[in-house]
């Protein structure tokens, strides 16, 4: 990405990449208009290798081209440009509205082999089915909904109401669910982020729409027990894949292990009726009578049973201690019984007070904090630029305590569950945004 910038400025450039990212960088170069950008490759990984081991990389052969690595560097910087490398102009890439008609069985196979599904059977989006889905909104089929991309280094794709409807049909959704799915599409946030860290997404629905479409906020809300919960979450994954620039492993999806939560994208409504606090969407500026969907991004959950009278403080800290600290990546999914205990017994009058408690009490030594690789990758550069509070933290003594979650306003609390027991989850999910559902009715 940076090398395309410098090439355009007239600076001959070579990017050194590890072997496993060849498909990714060539894809990014193609889409960036520089299909023959010059790369030299070394074995993977570079991270964790000693200087001696990396010297072997440099003195050895490029594992992609087979030529000596250093010769490749010099050739990349000095080799004369061919005609393709000198080209300018524009390449258009159209996507047809309809596929060539085919037999149902053949079309199912074609969708699967094209990478347009999540590997599970889909409902084929015939014109009739898509038209029926489109009746779930007052917006026209050709109306633009938004744009989306797998990550910051990739290109945006755009889409209309009809294209979102096609993906909603594929997921098995009903037309009455469609405004929620359109709101997710309009958010511009992909459910299939291409980070190597294997992000999952989480979708929380608030407001009257929860009851109107029969969502489940009670027993089993996060599990596979409700049509709306399941298919809205699945549709979000499918539309992210097909409308948001693809999710092709190695090219537009790099999650090293992947994340099983992406099948459903953890879609559920908040149990507002059983909550002792204000609904999540109200915290984000919506009125209680409005419907909204909120999107989070993280990787997984740890769990705890109950709020023990003597040692809940220690247990709460232990609950979140496994989370890798990175800005504000904490979301608490509180069972209604837990929320009630925290308010009535321990005096947490608001979600905000509970968030502040975690901010103040979940801390780690500075020496450990600054040695997290993810902190080195993403936080330390900001600290060195002077961004607070990280810049101040960088100068703290090794044994000083640093908050794992730096901004209490960034810690999210959602109430969900059916009251069968006080089991609850803490997830490393970061809140991204909330989107109006009513605007897409």
């Amino acid at each position, binding site marked *: 990405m*940076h090398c395309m*910038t*410098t*090439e*355009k*400025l007239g*600076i*001959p450039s*070579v*990017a*050194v990449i590890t072997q496993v*990212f060849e498909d990714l960088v060539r894809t990014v170069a193609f*889409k*960036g*208009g*520089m299909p023959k950008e010059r790369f030299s490759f070394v074995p993977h990984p*570079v*991270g964790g*290798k000693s*200087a001696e081991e*990396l010297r072997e*990389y*440099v003195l050895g052969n490029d594992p992609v081209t087979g030529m000596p690595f*250093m010769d490749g560097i*010099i050739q990349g*910087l*000095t080799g004369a440009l061919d005609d393709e*490398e*000198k*080209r*300018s*102009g*524009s*390449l258009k*890439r159209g*996507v047809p*509205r*309809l*596929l060539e008609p*085919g*037999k*149902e069985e053949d*079309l199912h196979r074609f969708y699967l082999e094209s990478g347009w599904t999540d590997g599970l059977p889909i409902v*084929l*989006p*015939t*014109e*009739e089915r898509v038209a*029926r889905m489109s009746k779930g909104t007052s917006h026209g089929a050709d109306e633009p909904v938004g744009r989306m991309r797998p990550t*910051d280094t990739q290109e945006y794709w755009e*889409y209309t109401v009809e*294209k979102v409807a*096609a993906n909603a049909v594929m997921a098995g959704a009903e037309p009455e669910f469609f405004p929620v799915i359109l709101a997710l599409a309009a958010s511009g946030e992909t459910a299939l982020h291409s980070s190597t860290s294997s992000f999952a997404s989480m979708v929380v629905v608030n407001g009257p729409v929860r009851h109107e479409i029969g969502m489940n906020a009670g027993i089993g809300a996060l599990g596979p027990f409700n049509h709306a919960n399941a298919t809205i979450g699945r549709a979000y994954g499918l539309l992210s894949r*097909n*409308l948001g*620039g693809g999710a092709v492993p190695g090219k537009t999806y790099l999650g090293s292990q992947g994340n099983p939560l992406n099948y459903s994208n953890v879609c559920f409504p908040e149990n507002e009726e059983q909550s002792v606090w204000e609904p999540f969407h109200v915290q984000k500026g919506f009125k209680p009578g409005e419907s909204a969907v909120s999107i989070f991004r993280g990787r997984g959950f740890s769990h705890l049973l109950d709020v023990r009278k003597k040692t809940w403080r220690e247990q709460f800290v232990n609950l979140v201690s496994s989370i890798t600290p990175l800005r504000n990546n904490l979301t608490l999914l509180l069972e209604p019984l837990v929320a009630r205990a925290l308010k009535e017994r321990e005096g947490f009058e608001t979600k905000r007070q509970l968030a502040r408690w975690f901010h103040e009490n979940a801390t780690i030594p500075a020496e450990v904090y600054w040695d997290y690789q993810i902190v080195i*990758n993403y936080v330390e*550069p*900001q600290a060195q*630029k002077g961004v607070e509070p990280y810049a101040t933290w960088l100068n703290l003594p090794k044994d000083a305590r640093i908050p794992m979650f730096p901004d209490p306003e960034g810690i999210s609390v959602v109430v969900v569950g059916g009251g069968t027991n006080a089991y609850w989850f803490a997830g490393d999910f970061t809140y991204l945004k909330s989107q109006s559902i009513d605007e897409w009715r």
Partner: protein
Amino acid sequence: MRSTSKGEKIAVLDPRGSPPSISLAPMAIRPESLVGRLVYLVDVRFMNGDTLLRELQKALARKCPDVRTEFRQKRGGYGEDDPGLWSEIRKNRGLMVMAIGH
């Protein structure tokens, strides 16, 4: 909803969104050799890329003693632009090798 009988051909929508047009950009003209030139070795601060570039710097010094090198760390996170550094490289008629560690 109408179901299709076996063997009947049906028309379905392509579920993909619209990708943007690609604007092709010509690459920088290359010098015939590196003799006397300044090569910037730019680290994006990601997963040990700096150590790799330091080794590359030593190897380049041995292989091409007439080439000058300058090791630099790009400002900000790995995806963040650094116009100041690009401007400096351009001003010095430099070339660039960037390591994106992982």
